[in-house]
């Protein structure tokens, strides 16, 4: 349990960007955290950035956003899941989900790799990059019904499974024998549609 406070927040499209203090292990791109509502539920949140003991996430639900802002602190757990490999990184996302791929792209840039966001719609961020780059990693977050538009090697943010019981011990985050909450949330497309 990590007791975190809101450091900063803003509206981004239909979502809300929140920066929390985070006295926990440093999350890596591709990992997620859980917001615990004591005695009620746990809510997985993709990490969109990390900087010096603060963590950035996007919260889509206006109700949850309001509740977070009115709390003295929130309880976070994690990071969970598997970091994605670093390299030249292409992100693919619909406009409501682009934040899911932000951390991999940002970290790739910071590490000196190329990064680009292919946005299906109008996203709240962009990344300048050289032409003709060979992408080492393709990460995507799109609705499930659009998966067939992605290359087979894409690592897809699995948004449609129950991520409760984060460390995977309940098995509820299973997708074709893979645990989205342990091996994911970014899983290779071939594992998802197999």
């Amino acid at each position, binding site marked *: *349990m990590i007791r975190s406070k809101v450091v900063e927040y803003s509206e981004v499209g239909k979502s809300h960007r929140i920066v929390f203090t985070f006295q926990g292990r440093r999350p890596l791109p591709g990992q997620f955290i859980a917001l*615990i*509502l*004591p*005695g*009620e*539920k*746990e809510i997985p949140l993709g990490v969109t950035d990390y900087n010096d003991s603060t963590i950035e996430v996007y919260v889509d639900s206006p109700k949850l956003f309001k509740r977070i802002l009115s*709390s*003295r*602190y929130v*309880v976070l*757990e994690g990071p969970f899941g598997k970091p994605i490999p670093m390299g030249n990184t292409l992100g693919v996302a619909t406009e409501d989900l682009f934040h899911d791929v932000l951390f991999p792209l940002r970290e790739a840039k910071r590490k000196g790799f190329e990064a680009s966001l292919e946005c299906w719609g109008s996203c709240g961020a962009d990344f300048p990059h050289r032409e003709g780059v060979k992408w080492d990693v393709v990460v995507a977050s799109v609705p499930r019904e659009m998966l067939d538009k992605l290359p087979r090697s894409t690592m897809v943010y699995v948004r449609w499974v129950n991520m*409760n*019981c*984060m*460390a*995977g*011990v*309940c*098995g*509820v985050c*299973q997708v*074709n*024998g*893979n*645990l989205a909450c342990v091996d994911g949330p970014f899983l290779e497309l071939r594992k998802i549609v197999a």
Partner: protein
Amino acid sequence: MYSIRLSGIELRDPFVIASGIVPDVPEYMARVCQEFSPSAITTKTFTLNPLEPHKPPTLVKISDGCFLNAIGLGNPGIKVMGSMEVPCNLFVSVGGSSLEEIVETAIIGEGKASLIEINLSSPNRRGYGADTAKFVREIVKEVKGKVRKPIFVKLGPWDNVVDLAGKALEGGADGLTLINTVKGMKLDVDAGKPVLSYGTGGVSGRCIHPLAVRVIGEVYSEYSAQIIGTGGVFSWEDAMELFLAGATAVGVGSAILERGFEVLNELRVGLTAFMEEKGINLSDVIGMAVRK
């Protein structure tokens, strides 16, 4: 040098995965077997019929290396094991709310099992687990009458654990798994209520290691029984303490939650190096610290 025989089962190393860690997803279990070669996986506890886990939150980390969980034995029912093909030793954990249910579950579980572990000690579901421990002798006796694989009984760190361990052995148990989690509670100070939806939960990990050492030591020095020691093993030194207290094998749980399955290899490497340096075998140290 550190392969062991646990009730006739050859294990290539003494580190098994404790119950409750690997979810009952066969492909995933198979991958854990292939990638990390655990000498055995203890399954999550199965009951005869499916049991819904408690509502989330069910698992939180409460301090460095310590967790609190109340999954409540949620499982899809033992029958799913029928189609489970997992290429390593399976210690099948079984539980239930009655003697009959436990026996029936064990009979079905035996098919894929190297060993049956009867879980009589979960603090997280009324009527199951800890509430059934008082019938331990009868339960073990019945299961032994119907099942030929080795039977271990998992007990909690209770005040009467030496007593209950004795009853399990009288009933014919081949060994004991010690200890289960310790019933605790975590409150949220802002909300003023428990963090876990179930209210209380079981504390695991580093916090309970000295308790595990003491309980294993007490039971071993009384009966010299075969024991799978579980409770806060994060390093080979932690494991060695359990061996010295009387454990023949060691179950690893919370350390995997915290560090991943890679921790198994760290344990193997550390233990091997120590034993080589000392020029000893594992069998030399088992129970050494508590032998009367």
